[in-house]
């Protein structure tokens, strides 16, 4: 048994936001206790006074690089970074080697995570075999093996008919297609947001329309077949507008954005900083504002960091050939906490974006809530802790982050996954082996 004492328990899924105590037992949440803490408690106690106690955070978009690219990251290091960042669950994308388009790969990920992971790992399997955009993967077999959704993330499903068939086929089974929305022809081999910074630096641009056209297309296909669609890493103003419109039309379309898109703009590319190179690219200030609005008004359902580890040498090169992507699991929470400034995002809404929302989108039972009977995945957040994100703090195998050296506010004081303490900075609280 484990008692988390005296924290502000924020559980949007059950409408709770009050000071109290949480009792965990046998890997489940047993109960919430208001008022005085139990005097005679037989078990471990974690003091959470002055801190938030929230359902374990869920990042629904990470690349663990395992199997196949273990020099960039593996399941152990990736989930270690997740736990340190407050995440008890991650959904990992299918662009591994071999691609996660077969139950063997799905099972490998799940079993390895069970053996050595520090967080729950939910594999997202490929929509098409080999991510080649030609033939559909065997959805049912993959789902039986444990895949929670399907995505060709890293690249779009270019053929609209194939996407239609996939969405239509999986609809009765309740699976969701996660879309890397990009028109790669329009993107035209660009390497940065098509805007002033790219013009000035002489970097070929990726127009906003490359994302927007694809989001519009995917939404219209979902509407045609009644499909369940999720738009990944939204980075543009019109992308947010399209999602809002789809929702008003009553479609089952959800969307995520990443902390980098509401924190940075393409100005971060000055000096050809390859750690600011990603796809979709960092956009302009107007896009950043629109992402913030989408978060505030509930259009955006989830924050997911698109954790994309890369070894040093594929970033230490010319901008044009540098790899896309940044690590994010250890900075996602503090960057998201900055949304609270100004009061337009409440703590409950933030917890929804980082936990309850992704659990809903991916239908993760027992996750994203602290209701009695839920899994004992809990994150204790110190929203005020001030710290600096230095290279020595990085638990990933890769250090490709534009946020190195940033002063951060707020972090995970303890991360409890399935009742086991996976990370803790609270004095006297030890991490379970």
């Amino acid at each position, binding site marked *: 048994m484990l008692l988390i004492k005296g924290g502000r328990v924020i559980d949007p899924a059950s409408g709770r936001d009050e000071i109290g105590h949480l009792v965990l037992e046998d890997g489940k949440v047993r109960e919430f206790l208001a008022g005085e803490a139990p005097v005679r408690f037989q078990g471990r106690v974690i003091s959470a006074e002055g801190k938030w106690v929230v359902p374990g955070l869920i990042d629904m978009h990470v690349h663990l690089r395992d199997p196949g690219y273990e020099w960039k990251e593996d399941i152990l290091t990736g989930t270690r970074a997740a736990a340190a960042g407050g995440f008890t669950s991650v959904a990992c994308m299918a662009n591994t080697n071999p691609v996660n388009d077969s139950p063997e790969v799905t099972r490998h990920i799940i079993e390895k995570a069970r053996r050595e992971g520090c967080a729950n790992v939910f594999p997202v399997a490929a929509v098409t075999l080999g991510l080649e955009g030609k033939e559909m993967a065997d959805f049912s077999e993959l789902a039986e093996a444990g895949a929670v959704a399907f995505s060709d993330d890293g690249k779009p499903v270019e053929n609209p008919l194939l996407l239609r068939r996939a969405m239509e086929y999986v609809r009765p089974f309740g699976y969701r297609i996660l879309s890397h929305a990009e028109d790669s022809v329009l993107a035209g081999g660009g390497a940065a947001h098509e805007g002033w910074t790219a013009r000035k630096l002489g970097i070929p641009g990726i127009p906003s329309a490359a994302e927007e056209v694809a989001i519009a297309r995917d939404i219209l296909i979902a509407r045609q077949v009644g499909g369940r669609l999720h738009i990944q890493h939204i980075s543009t103003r019109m992308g947010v507008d399209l999602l809002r419109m789809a929702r008003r039309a009553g479609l089952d379309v959800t969307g995520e954005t990443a902390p980098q898109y509401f924190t940075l703009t393409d100005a971060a590319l000055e000096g*050809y900083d390859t750690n600011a190179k990603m796809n979709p690219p960092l956009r302009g200030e107007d896009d950043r504002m629109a992402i913030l609005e989408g978060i505030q008004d509930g259009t955006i359902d989830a924050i997911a960091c698109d954790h994309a580890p890369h070894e040093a040498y594929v970033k230490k090169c010319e901008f044009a050939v540098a790899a896309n992507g940044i690590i994010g699991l250890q900075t996602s929470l503090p960057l998201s906490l900055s949304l609270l400034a100004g009061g337009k995002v409440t703590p409950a809404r933030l917890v929804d974006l980082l936990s309850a929302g992704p659990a809903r989108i991916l239908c993760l039972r027992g996750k994203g809530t602290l209701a009695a009977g839920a899994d004992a995945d809990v994150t204790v957040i110190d929203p005020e802790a001030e710290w600096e994100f230095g290279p020595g703090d990085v638990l990933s195998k890769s250090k490709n982050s534009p946020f190195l050296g940033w002063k951060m506010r707020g972090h995970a004081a303890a991360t409890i996954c399935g009742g086991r303490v996976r990370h803790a900075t609270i004095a006297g609280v030890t991490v379970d082996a």
Partner: protein
Amino acid sequence: MEWHRRHVLGLSDFHPEEMEFVIDTARSMEEVLTRDIKKVPALRGKTVVNLFFEASTRTRTSFEIAGKRLSADVVNFSSATSSVTKGETLLDTARNIEAMKPNILVVRHSASGAALFLSRHVSCSIINAGDGQNEHPSQGLLDLYTILKVKGKIAGLKIAIVGDILHSRVVRSDLHSLGRMGAKLWLCGPATLVPREMERTGAVVTSDIREAVRGADVVIMLRIQLERQKTAYFPSLREYSRRFGLNRDVFSLAKDDAVIMHPGPINRGVELSDELADCERSLVLLQVESGVAVRMALLYLLAGGSHVAH
């Protein structure tokens, strides 16, 4: 003034006085070029490596002659290998060359930012001889020098630059050199090749060549780089030439003493009519001449020189 730079990576952070200083130095260098024995010992014992990852004959030759006139040992390293094909990384190549202890690396590369990138990782001086679509600082300075020779000033001149603005590193350097010295710049070309954002530089952006050339003191024509066109930016060369080519009819709208420039190589009959390319108002060869002097000045200044040995 004192020269403090270790590298010349671009003109974006050059002050007007600094550019004038380079031009003054180039003038002294040009005097050397008029001598019977066109060589001074200023860079004796220094090694200049031309590290060219992109095909270029004229810029490389210009730097080579510049180095040799200053008595430097000049070594050419050309690698046709594009940065995208797998193999040795740019950084490894540069470090290998650096281990041979050159004083100055003159770098041409297809990736924007390549020269800046190398300057952060090697200890010798770097001159950017063109990095992707970013900058070509020696071209920006030689254009400035050439116009000064003919017009005596830059401030107040209307200078039209016509062609593929989007992909041009020459434009990005000219905007700094000519723009910062007070020229009124007009950028002209097909809308697909003249990004609207370029108005942020203070230049006027247009797709009407007649408007751009009308009353101009200088018309700089850019090469239409067919090799850069993976997808068409305009319907055909024929149409391009009709809309955006400079011929006698269009050029007659410019000032009576207007001059034509072109960084070369010229596509005769495409961006520039045959007769204009060879006319007395064309400064193309004067640009090449100024180029050697400007590059001598840059090599000289980076090697630590402060005055020319007579």
